[in-house]
């Protein structure tokens, strides 16, 4: 099923998408329409153009592949499904996501993966091919964030204040430099073979989705950022 999004307001477009019976839906000429994929179950959406904010909010068992850039609040509180972006992403990508996967070929903005969670067999993943802005993985409670930093030559692939308030999950950063200025709630180590084995399937998926040769991802070390067991996010209070 093909839909032309030209000159369609988001409510109209989303209504059309919700009413399609077939699983595969291709939407052409997407230009800023919000909330695509929200409230849509068991579909596979292929979007051409630039979807607007809130794409895939509360996503549940729907896959979205975008040929273009995406904007802010993609995958907000998503529960299940794959989002693949052949382009860049804006801010608050994957806010509080609990399940599913988000793969972005290029860079992503600020506050990626804030308050990402995990629950039982739901182990969400965010993989960013390029660099990310500040506040990556703040309050992270579960799941895995991988930043590959493709394109970061002499720069740090992540911004400032990474992992403030982190109390679960893992972040992996491919970087020529060891990420510094980290908050006391997190620890950082160079990845060992066990860590690499854990993220290998994510690297494989990234290479497959975006047709990237894996050897270009082997030239720099990977760092593992995780909650600091000696200095956990603890209450600062005295009760009475």
């Amino acid at each position: 099923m093909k839909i032309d999004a030209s000159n369609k307001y988001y409510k109209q477009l989303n209504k059309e998408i919700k009413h399609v019976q077939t699983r595969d839906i291709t939407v052409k000429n997407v230009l800023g329409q919000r909330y695509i994929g929200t409230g849509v179950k068991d579909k596979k959406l292929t979007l051409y153009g630039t979807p607007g904010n809130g794409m895939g909010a509360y996503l549940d068992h729907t896959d979205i592949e975008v040929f273009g850039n995406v904007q802010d609040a993609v995958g907000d509180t998503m529960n299940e499904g794959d989002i693949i972006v052949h382009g860049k992403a804006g801010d608050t990508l994957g806010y509080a996501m609990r399940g599913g996967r988000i793969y972005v070929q290029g860079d992503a903005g600020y506050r990626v993966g804030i308050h990402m969670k995990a629950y039982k067999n739901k182990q969400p993943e965010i993989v960013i091919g390029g660099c990310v802005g500040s506040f990556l993985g703040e309050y992270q409670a579960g799941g895995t964030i991988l930043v590959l930093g493709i394109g970061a030559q002499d720069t740090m692939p992540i911004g400032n204040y990474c992992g403030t308030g982190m109390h679960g999950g893992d972040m992996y950063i491919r970087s020529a430099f060891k990420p510094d200025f980290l908050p006391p709630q997190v620890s950082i180590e160079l990845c060992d073979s066990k860590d690499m084995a854990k993220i290998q399937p994510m690297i494989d998926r990234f290479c497959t989705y975006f047709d990237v040769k894996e050897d270009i991802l082997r030239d720099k070390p990977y760092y593992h950022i995780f909650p600091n067991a000696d200095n956990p996010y603890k209450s600062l209070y005295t009760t009475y």
Partner: protein
Amino acid sequence: MGIEYLYPEFEVHRNFDRCIKCRVCERQCSEGVHFYDAEDDIMRADESKCVDCQRCVTMCPTRALKIVKTENTFRPNHNWHQDTIEEIYRQATSGGALLSSMGNPKDYPSYWDRILLNASQVTNPSIDPLREPMETKVFLGKKPHDLEFDSHGEVISKLPPQIELELPVMFSAMSFGALSENAHKSLARAATACGTCYNTGEGGLNKSLYPYGPNTIVQVASGRFGVHEDYLKAGCAIEIKMGQGAKPGIGGHLPGRKIGPKVAETRMIPEGSDAISPAPHHDIYSIEDLRQLVYSLKEATNYEKPVIVKIAAVHNVAAIASGIARSGADIIAIDGFRGGTGAAPTRIRDNVGIPIELALAAVDQRLRDEKIRNDISIVVGGSIRSSADVVKAIALGADACYIGTAALIALGCHLCRQCQRGLCNWGIATQREDLCRRLNPDIGTEHLINLLTAWNNEIKEMMGGMGINSIEALRGNRLMLRGVGMTEKELEILGIKHAGE
């Protein structure tokens, strides 16, 4: 002993002529105050642990117990109260920020208590609710600016989604985790029986309570615990929690020890892990961002559910409310500075925010001035203590009220303000199995139904006295209110006259 020694605040008075050493008090006290001294064959108490929850007093079969505030005092000082001095001792020895529970207990003015209601005399007959129909039903949601009818007189305008309430009182947001399962069950069942709503709070909704969905408001807070598509569709409305009266500008932290299997399942997080709600929603830094979240929720639920935005009553509340009305939200909930909590930093609870009476009057007036009052309903909470407070709130401009503390008191809460400890002897604010069993959900439901029924009858009586037979005719009817002992400025903000005028 240095300054860390604080003389116990309460004394356990046991009448040994009455005490039969049945040890009920010992079994009932989760704080471990009472114990049996076998050597002397006598019941004893360690009052340093007593929180004055009144459980032992209530359960003692021979009325042998009472809890009395100690007479031991520091040298009286009107500037340095004993509490203030003791708080400094606590902080000097622990280094911790003070944490406490339930609403602000300080001696700030209550404007409800300075507002009086009108009644009809001679020229405008009062109405007896026993013989005349009285309407306390309200609809919450956007109201259309005009209506279109077909040739048969049937309305053809499509109404935005509404919450229909049999009385203008709902149970406010209290999460499963802060409250026990039986407390939640009681609220859900009573709301259903009375045709009103309870609110899940930010802890998700357990599947076992989905059948009460038509009377459930589901909440979305910064932590997004338990939020997924089915959850959003399970309730009759969705509430975005931006703030809470007890702790404006502060997030929440449910410690891992309170996250047992069922709470974990409901919040959809691992057992024993901390549940942290950041202070702001990190995707909302403006009214435009709020609008984005409001419409993402509407999109996820096919525009069938009203969206509530809940904020704490703070200094610029009127301007904020105007923004919220323009964000596309259907209902604004405002929580006053006396609102309750399961745990809040004491300094925040006791010093931040403004009285709900003033906030409500300011918001209602602002929305009227901007001609957008019909675009949004107003729900107020933050220490609504009686049906009289409800009537005054409606007359000041509210569409409905939220009650939290009053509902918990109906379930047995004695306001000992120790919710954060998780040892609630009344089975309300605890996850400990043996304590949870103390709250029978059948009895809890009955007490809540009784409370709402009584309040609804009282509301009708007060309305009848004013010669008003419909809650719609009371809303924003400030001529029904007079102030006593207020300044010009206070009267001006409340938009009411002084008694005698």
